[in-house]
């Protein structure tokens, strides 16, 4: 057994050495520090592959891209084996808008653009008002995808509906078709930080935004690929948003994890506008036994909405 391990190590090292030798074009020891690296004197602790804590100079750390860049066709295909779902617990929402803040920040949205809208809802005059965070529904029968003439908005096998802003022609038919008014248009040149603007567009990060194209909530598949939760989920202090995988039948808000089917059954989860046949991927839990009174959210109303209240 031991012999085996050392043999594999040897093989790996040998391969690395060969690769390094090929790359640098000379027979230097690949483990010796490169000559150009100036030691900073600052040490960092790292966990080695063997589980030991080692200390190395900071200068040896090289920035590694988070993810190998995905091709457009990989982004259009989706994450294999997943079927993303979101559950929004209306009993926990008090219109804090932390979700919106985090989302806008993470996606460098311009003022006035909100992918998440927290709506003040009241079904009838005598019924109780409640706060309803609204994301893209990532419908299984997406009306927006049906009407897009150029396949700029598309449905993936993991259930997500995303936008290719490099392809969108800006006809805005999808905005007319979406019954949830979830889509946002870039009416003018988006103001972006240089680092963001310089990136190539990715359908998974939905960044950088481009003038004359449509954008919307993307369920943060870039975070999912890193095994992390969407920004709205992690930023909500009240655990309103639960995100997960239908195939695993589990959703989590980071602190609590639920079996999706049981949660929906126990709390009578529902989807918006079921009668339209759009089959959303977002489920709502009704605002019963609430954590906060509706009124506690009023102070956070946006100025434009304050007038109508």
């Amino acid at each position, binding site marked *: 057994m031991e012999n085996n391990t050392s043999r594999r190590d040897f093989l790996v090292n040998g391969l690395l050495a060969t690769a390094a030798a090929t790359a640098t074009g000379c027979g230097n020891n690949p483990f010796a520090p490169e000559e150009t690296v100036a030691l900073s004197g600052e040490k960092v602790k790292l966990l080695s592959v063997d589980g030991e804590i080692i200390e190395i100079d900071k200068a040896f750390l090289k920035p590694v891209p988070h993810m190998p860049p995905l091709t457009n066709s990989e982004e259009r295909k989706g994450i294999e084996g997943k079927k993303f779902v979101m559950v929004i617990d209306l009993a926990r929402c008090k219109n804090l808008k932390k979700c*919106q803040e985090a989302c806008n920040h993470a996606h460098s949205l311009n003022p006035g653009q*909100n992918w998440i809208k927290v709506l003040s809802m009241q079904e009838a005059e005598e019924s109780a008002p409640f706060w309803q965070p609204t994301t893209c529904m990532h419908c299984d029968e997406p009306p927006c995808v*049906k009407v897009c003439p*150029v396949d700029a908005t598309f449905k993936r096998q993991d259930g997500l509906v995303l936008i290719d802003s490099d392809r969108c*022609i800006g006809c805005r*038919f999808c905005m*007319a078709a979406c019954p949830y008014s979830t889509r946002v248009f*870039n*009416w003018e040149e988006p103001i972006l930080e240089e680092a963001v603007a310089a990136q190539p567009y990715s359908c998974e990060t939905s960044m950088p935004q481009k003038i004359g194209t449509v954008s919307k909530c993307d369920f943060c598949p870039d975070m999912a690929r890193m095994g992390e939760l969407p920004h709205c989920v992690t930023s909500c202090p009240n655990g309103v948003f639960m995100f997960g995988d239908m195939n695993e039948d589990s959703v989590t808000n980071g602190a609590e994890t639920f079996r999706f089917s049981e949660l929906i059954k126990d709390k009578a989860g529902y989807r918006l506008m079921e009668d339209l046949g759009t089959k959303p991927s977002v489920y709502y839990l009704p605002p019963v036994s609430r954590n906060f009174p509706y009124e506690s959210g009023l102070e956070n109303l946006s100025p*434009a909405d304050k007038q109508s209240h």
Partner: protein
Amino acid sequence: MENSPSLTKDQIIQDLLPQKFGKLGMIWTYSLIFICLIGAFAYYRQLSKGLVVTNMGDYVSWGIYISNFVFFVAISLVGSLITAIFRLSNMKWATPLTRIAEIIAVSAIVFASLIIIIDMGRPDRMLNLFLHGRIQSPIMWDVIVISTYFVISLLLLYLPLLPDLKIMIKFKERSSNILNKLYLFQGSFWRGTAEQFKISERAITILCITIIPVAFSIHTVTSWLFATTYRPGWDSTNFGAYFISGAFLVGAGGVVVAMFVFRKFYKLEKYITEMHFEKMGRIVVMLSLLYLYFNINEYLVPAFKMKSGEEAHLKGLFSGEFALIFWFAILIGMIIPILILVFKKGRKPLPMFIAGIMIVIGAWFKRYLIVTPTLLHPFLPMQDAPAEFHHYFPSWEEWAIAMGTLAGTLLVITFFARIYPIIPIQETITEQDETCMSLPPTKRHE
């Protein structure tokens, strides 16, 4: 011509050959050019700053560009009505009107395509429609049928023009050198042999048959851009027929206006007679009643039920924010024209002209009402969005561009009427001969 059998061939040619514009014609043309230039400047601003120069927002994401587009597609349908439907049903009296109808159709469809490009956020990516086109999108259907309709309409304009080009080439002292070169380029191959006439006739008949389903398609598909969505006010199975009936009405109204103007300024009283106005008047009444019928269907049935989604929309139209435009469009676009034209006295040229203008203006506002109010009543409340998104009134750039395209359409028609005979010369001669029966059939086409 039925009621002017004394015209000689030479007189017909002299009367109908294109004439130089007078002072009024020049003022008209330069005014149109001026309006187009303002529109072009506004579009330049839009290209450099983006659609932010418009007052559209994330709720009202389609504004007067789209309603103008619907208006253009609607008015262009008249080409198929007068050229094809009348021709196939053997309504010979309409012959002098065919070219007027067809040039309205062609220029309107050109500007329909233009305004839809103007509405695009990324006109630079237009080729994506061909590189990545997806056939299940109604927009692709529109691209296909509109381009087909354009080609057929252009052919229906061109083929009957060939014999007239020959006449114009013969009378070359009437036109400048450049125009004569144009006539030669377009029509020198036409010798007017019996065989050429036979081929041309056959082609025109085939085109007339094909253009009818294509015409129905362009406006039905245009209505589906709305009807395929879920929104109150658009989600209607009535929409295709409603749009087509409205299209024939506005087109016929447009033709009546053009008839009056050409008759007056080109002194065509002998060719566009009171009989033509009388008959067009009856047709316009019928079309107005038809459109009124579909309007009643479109508004009364949902208003009877008042589903909660429709309620805000319908109340906005009947008595709310849009009531003034709504009743204006219904009255001026249908009711008053019907009241004028049901009476024999109302079917004289001047009242017809006034009714025609009313119909066209009413129709333009009707298209605005079809597009905008619906978008202001989404399913979920309009919140967490900038306050200016809660209302819509077009910006000056939008007005300038919309008016620029309307002026452009009129400009194309004006130029056409300056360059080509607006009433088909050869067909008028042929029909005169047929009516007189004074010549043996073999000589008719000479």
